[in-house]
């Protein structure tokens, strides 16, 4: 067995132990314990953002950066499509 293989076995065992411990410490399915975030958003959305729709309040107010990224993804998609088809037209 070369040193490379021994190192691979050690790394694999360490990662596997981490995964097994994480799996054992998980909450039971469908019964989340930490629901503080949900309760906070449900309770405070209307007075903090003024919007009745909690989902839109999360998307555009609490997680505005996520929406900025989504808009950037859309812009990149449009730019890519135009780039591909403009080249196909000129050839």
């Amino acid at each position, binding site marked *: 067995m070369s040193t490379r293989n021994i190192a691979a076995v050690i790394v694999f065992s360490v990662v596997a132990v981490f995964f097994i411990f994480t799996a054992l410490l998980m909450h039971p399915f469908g019964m989340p314990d930490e629901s503080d975030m949900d309760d906070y958003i449900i*309770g405070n959305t*209307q*007075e*903090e*953002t*003024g*919007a*009745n*729709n909690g*989902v*839109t*309040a999360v*998307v*555009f*107010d609490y997680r*505005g*950066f996520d*929406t*900025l990224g*989504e*808009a950037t993804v*859309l*812009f990149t*998609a*449009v730019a890519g*499509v*135009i780039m591909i*088809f*403009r080249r*196909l*037209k000129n050839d």
Partner: protein
Amino acid sequence: MTEMSKIVRTITSIAFPFAMIYGLYVIAHGHLTPGGGFQGGAIAASACAMILVAFGSKWTLNKIKEKGLSVFESLGAIGFIALALLGLVFGVAFFNNFLTGSNFLFGTIPATGSGLADINTGGVIPLMNFAVGLKVIVGLFVIVLVMAYASTSFKEDKK
């Protein structure tokens, strides 16, 4: 893409305003009902794509200007980032909702719990919905339009 039969074109021109109005309604009521800028924009863009399928890409390109499309898309993107930056200027942080509770546009705060919806609420959320909706309508329509036009000209080159 060539145009389809007269029956399809007539039905499309009847159905287009309704689909467009429904998309704009979903955008405008994004802070009250399910939906928002992305969803309403997808509905309105599908209405535009329906026009493109029924009338053909040549007819559609004669009716609209490419300059206008790029202006509208840039307007949506710049408006969204400008609203976020205004939160930095008038509020405390990037994406801060500075209009909420300000007695200005969309400034009313609704009563907690369920109740009658008021359109004049939400702070910058409705304005951001408009910006993102404009961007999604034009962006998706440009994708479909460029694909349709490229396939038409590619076919003509092969002949």
